[in-house]
């Protein structure tokens, strides 16, 4: 993990600055529902203006964590600090957070305009100011001509925009988004992701998003927290999460990956930093340039992403390490990429992805072909957890 895997989105990384004060701090938060522990002694810092994702499968506690910040649930143990102030016991209607609900929760008996104005009316702002703010919000989400419509006269995408406008209207210090794009189709979802990022940049707010869609989290976030069973497994930038997952769980959850269980055979130390490690994975010898602190005999996992595995019908120069031979078992044609499922002699399946850079319809490699898969020393990683 010594290689530079910084933010790829923008120059923004307050979490690397030890003097930075977190905007939101979850401090040893535990939440139990009866016997079930939804969130287990979790500590997490989120910084101002950060676009932060909570990512995990359903039931991992990510929504509960967000609902505790919104004030709909109180933590069983621990405390939540917002700008250094403990907000335990503050009811949702007095918190400077606003939430965009998964179901959008638009008020069906009010027009788009009235939905957006609702929060501003609670603050008893003067009428003119409310009208101006509503107009500004309608413009922001490009719904000016739909101001007088009721929610049931809008499409799913338009409703989602109204929900966003309503939650942004009060300029909350933190915007909470609960699976905000779940109900949209893929194309619209991608568009909206970029719009969300734009809006977040323009308004300079802190966004906390809950999602189970790893692509969405990768696209929009400055940092992602991957959660499992009430605990955070890894908090890192999208690039770090993808290229340097800290555990089998994270590696497997984010994207596609080949994982082999194995035993460390040799290690080299490189002045304290993790050095080259070779691993025997039931007959497959693999090596990783910057492996981990391990001694031979340790049980570890070797992981390599399919797009880093090269596939060719020809035997590579060195087959002693990081190379396997097998038969093309299945091909997944995705348009931009083709994924080859290669079956080894011992029935293990290895995935290799190849970008379809030419428009050839007849691919040189097809079903039943015997192929070689190989990857460079820096492609794989060693997982100890």
């Amino acid at each position, binding site marked *: 993990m010594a290689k530079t895997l910084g933010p790829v989105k923008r120059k923004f990384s307050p979490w690397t600055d030890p003097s930075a004060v977190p905007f939101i701090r979850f401090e040893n938060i535990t939440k139990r529902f009866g016997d079930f522990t939804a969130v287990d002694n979790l500590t997490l810092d989120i910084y101002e203006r950060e676009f932060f994702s909570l990512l995990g499968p359903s039931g991992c506690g990510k929504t509960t964590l967000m609902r505790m910040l*919104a*004030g*709909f649930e109180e933590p069983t143990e621990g405390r939540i600090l917002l700008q250094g102030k403990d907000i335990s016991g503050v*009811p*949702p*209607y*007095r918190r400077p*957070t*606003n*939430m965009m*609900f*998964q*179901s959008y*929760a*638009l*008020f*069906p*008996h009010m027009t788009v305009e009235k939905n957006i104005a*609702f*929060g501003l009316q*609670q*603050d008893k702002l003067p009428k003119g100011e409310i009208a101006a703010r509503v107009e500004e919000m309608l413009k922001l989400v490009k719904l000016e001509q739909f101001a007088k419509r009721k929610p049931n006269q809008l499409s799913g995408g338009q409703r989602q925009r109204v929900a966003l406008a*309503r*939650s942004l209207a*009060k300029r909350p210090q933190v915007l909470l988004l609960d699976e905000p794009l779940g109900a949209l189709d893929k194309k619209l979802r991608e568009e909206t992701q970029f719009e969300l990022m734009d809006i977040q940049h323009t308004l300079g707010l802190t966004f906390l998003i809950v999602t189970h869609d790893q692509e969405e989290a990768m696209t929009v976030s400055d940092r992602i927290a991957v959660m499992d069973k009430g605990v955070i497994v890894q908090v890192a930038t999208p690039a770090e999460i993808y290229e340097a997952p800290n555990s089998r769980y994270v590696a497997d959850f984010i994207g596609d990956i080949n994982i082999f269980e194995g035993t460390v055979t040799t290690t080299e130390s490189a002045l304290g930093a993790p050095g080259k490690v070779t691993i025997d994975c039931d007959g497959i010898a693999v090596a990783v340039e910057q492996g981990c602190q391990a001694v031979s005999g340790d049980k570890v996992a070797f992981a390599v992403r399919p797009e880093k595995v090269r596939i060719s019908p020809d035997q590579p120069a060195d087959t002693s390490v990081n190379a396997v031979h097998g038969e093309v078992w299945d091909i997944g044609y995705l348009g931009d990429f083709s994924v080859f499922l290669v079956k080894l002699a011992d029935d293990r399946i290895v995935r290799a992805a190849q970008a379809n850079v030419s428009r050839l319809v007849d691919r040189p490699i097809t079903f039943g072909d015997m192929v070689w898969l190989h990857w460079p020393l820096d492609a794989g990683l060693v997982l100890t957890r």
Partner: protein
Amino acid sequence: MAAVSEARSDENASPFRWLVVVLPYVWLLLFFVAPFLIILKISLSDTAISQPPYTPLFQGFGALSDFLAQLDFENYLFLTDDPLYIQSYLSSLRIAFISTVLLLLIGYPIALAMARAPLAIRPTLVMLVILPFWTSFLIRVYAWIGILKPDGLLTLLLHSIGLLGPEDQVQIFRTDYAVFVGIVYSYLPFMVLPLYSALEKMDNSLIEAANDLGCPPLKAFWRITFPLSLPGVIAGSMICFIPITGEFVIPDLLGGADTLMIGKTLWTEFFGNRDWPLASSVAVILLIMLVVPIMIFQNQQKKVA
């Protein structure tokens, strides 16, 4: 999908299909429209001291012009002459209105509590609301006599907890108060169930969204919950108001001699005075009084939707 299902329904266009549509209409024709026309005809004819106590319904086609000539609005005019009828109508509407308001005030919190109760116990709560129907309506009203009469259970209870002196008795039996108690008790399920079904459908995240936007719970109730439950409020009010207006059993059993309700007047005209034509016209007016506002209301609802 739509095309497929259409094709299938055409295929199934058997002679039985129209039967499904026609049957309810035949039912209504036989058991509502026909009797109503008979009542209407009786209301336009004169009293005859015979058996049955009204002029014959129909005497062949030759007598059609005679028949029409016999009809007049005499009975309806009489209704406006005697203040008893107008007072009965007004008193019925007043009692029905007050009862409906009371039912709403009592039924709404019950329905709300049911809708917010844990999902697992909601079916039980609904069953508890329906439970009284397992006993005859008449028996339940009679039971109230036992409770409300001066030496009844209510007096005993108040004596035993010392709220009432040993010589005093609760004097509400055979008053309008007893009628309200009986009506509210009897009609409560009809108010609670439509309210519950409207409230239960509501997504709780709407309330959370309102809270989240800075709206405290009580205000959120008036701005979100109540407006969204209006269809249930209207349905429940109609289902209660209409039959209460024509209620006969409860005022007869629990009300006093001075409790004026159109149902009682109607009964007196039919069976006391045996003036069926007049009684019929009272019934026709009652029907018009209730149907016309409902039709106007439904028309407006359609325009809104």
